[in-house]
């Protein structure tokens, strides 16, 4: 299903989605974030760069309570599971890189051991994507990690900006439902609309971006470069914060803690929170031994997870090239540079490779 949405009618479409909570990008307290919108507001537009945080938290929130626990009168433990039952949510204006990231999360939390909490949130979540006519950030590099500025993976709807209007394309049954619900705001798309959209797509693909060199060789070369001294050198300015991982649309590491609220009777809850491989205590053993004690090892873990381990397990780079970790890194650590340098060093010395 493809339709045309006049830019001025965006609010009307949102207003028609009565059964959904709609989140749209807004500049709030100085940052771009997805915030709930009711719809009919005048001037609801999608002129945003990429948001500071991806919409990852909608399916994998920073804090998830698994269950609460307490003691019964006779001192026996009692668990009360707390599986979320969120309302239907639509995230509007999702960039294709973030849409694609959702499919990676689906693999992690869905394939081998389905995560009930993730599934409950994911099942009620829809992404309405917005194609990138030009890269929203100078650090974008989606094309060299297998993505596309017009990519459709993970999205339920893709909107393509045609200056005064959007071409709106349903990609899933949920997407069709969203468009059906908003049909009052949508009009038929014509061949010229489609042609213009195609033009935009070709222009976007042709737009220069940061590039990971020889991506197909990267997993192998990272593997070869595991012991490289470059890791430590590249991590030299690293301060060991969690920005790169917490802003990443695909990072999914977590910690599980019992938050004890009272000692007598014992009560509290078991909570999953985001964790970061960049934190010094991430791999700290209770013996005091830390297998990744230095910053180089932690940088290597982050990069290799994205470009080697995930590839080995799932056949795709985990990184979707959104560029957030580059933009927000306080000291300029640039994942594209890191990958390229380590891979280049590990490249077999063959003229063809240079």
């Amino acid at each position, binding site marked *: 299903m493809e339709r045309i949405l006049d830019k001025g009618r965006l609010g009307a479409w949102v207003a028609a989605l009565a059964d959904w909570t709609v989140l749209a990008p807004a500049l709030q307290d100085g940052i771009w974030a997805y915030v709930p919108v009711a719809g009919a507001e005048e001037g609801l537009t999608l002129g945003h760069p990429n948001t500071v945080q991806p919409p990852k938290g909608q399916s994998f929130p920073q804090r998830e*309570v698994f269950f*609460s626990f307490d003691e019964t009168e006779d001192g026996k433990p009692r668990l009360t599971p*707390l599986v979320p039952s969120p309302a239907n949510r639509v995230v509007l204006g999702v960039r294709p890189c973030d849409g694609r990231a959702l499919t990676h999360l689906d693999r992690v939390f869905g394939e081998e051991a389905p995560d009930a909490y993730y599934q409950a949130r994911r099942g009620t979540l829809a992404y309405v994507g917005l194609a990138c006519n030009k890269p929203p950030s100078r650090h974008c590099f989606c094309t060299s990690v297998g993505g596309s500025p017009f990519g459709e993976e993970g999205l339920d709807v893709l909107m393509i900006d045609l200056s005064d209007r959007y071409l709106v394309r349903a990609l899933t049954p949920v997407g069709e439902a969203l468009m059906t619900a908003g049909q009052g705001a949508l009009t038929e798309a014509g061949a010229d609309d489609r042609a213009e959209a195609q033009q935009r797509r070709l222009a976007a693909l042709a737009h220069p971006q940061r590039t990971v060199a020889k991506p197909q060789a990267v997993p192998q070369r990272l593997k070869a470069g595991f012991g490289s001294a470059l890791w430590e050198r590249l991590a030299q300015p690293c301060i060991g914060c969690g920005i790169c991982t917490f802003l990443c649309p695909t990072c999914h590491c977590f910690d599980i803690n019992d*938050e004890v*609220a009272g000692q007598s009777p014992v009560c*509290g*809850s078991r*909570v999953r929170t985001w964790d970061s491989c960049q934190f010094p205590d991430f791999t700290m053993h209770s013996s005091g031994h830390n297998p990744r004690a230095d910053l180089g090892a932690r940088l290597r873990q982050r990069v290799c997870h994205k470009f080697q381990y995930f590839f080995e397990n799932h056949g795709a780079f985990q990184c979707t090239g959104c560029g957030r970790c580059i933009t927000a890194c306080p000291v300029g650590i640039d994942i594209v540079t890191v990958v390229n340098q380590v891979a280049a060093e590990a490249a077999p010395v063959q003229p063809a490779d240079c």
Partner: protein
Amino acid sequence: MSEDPMTPYEPRIVAFLCKWCSSAGSDLAGVSRIQYPANATPITVMCSGSVSPQYILTAFRKGADGVLVSGCHLGDCHYLEGNYLARRKLFLVKELLEFIGLEPERFRMSWVSAAEGAKFAKVITDFVADLRPLGPQHKLQVQRP
């Protein structure tokens, strides 16, 4: 956290009292049978200087409506100058709590000597009276789960 609208709100106060002066002063209030509200639960510490700002934050985060730190008068500290250190440190705690918008009445310090039973009673009485109009403190309180 359930609140029964029918029962009037009773402020919950954590009172850190130094062992040598303020706790002894509260003992004297008892010996003198001076009546004051039962809202403050004392926790005896060796010296007001040992009260870490973390204790105060934690009390608020666990739901205290008010926190009192009471020590010896200046110059009377059993440990010579612990109360001077406490005063400087807790002044900053007070300023910071007010700065983020906690009502200034919720954190209080006093000097109560072992001979000031009546003063101890007054400190508690005044504190409770000042806390009543504010209602329960939820700003810093942990909401679980």
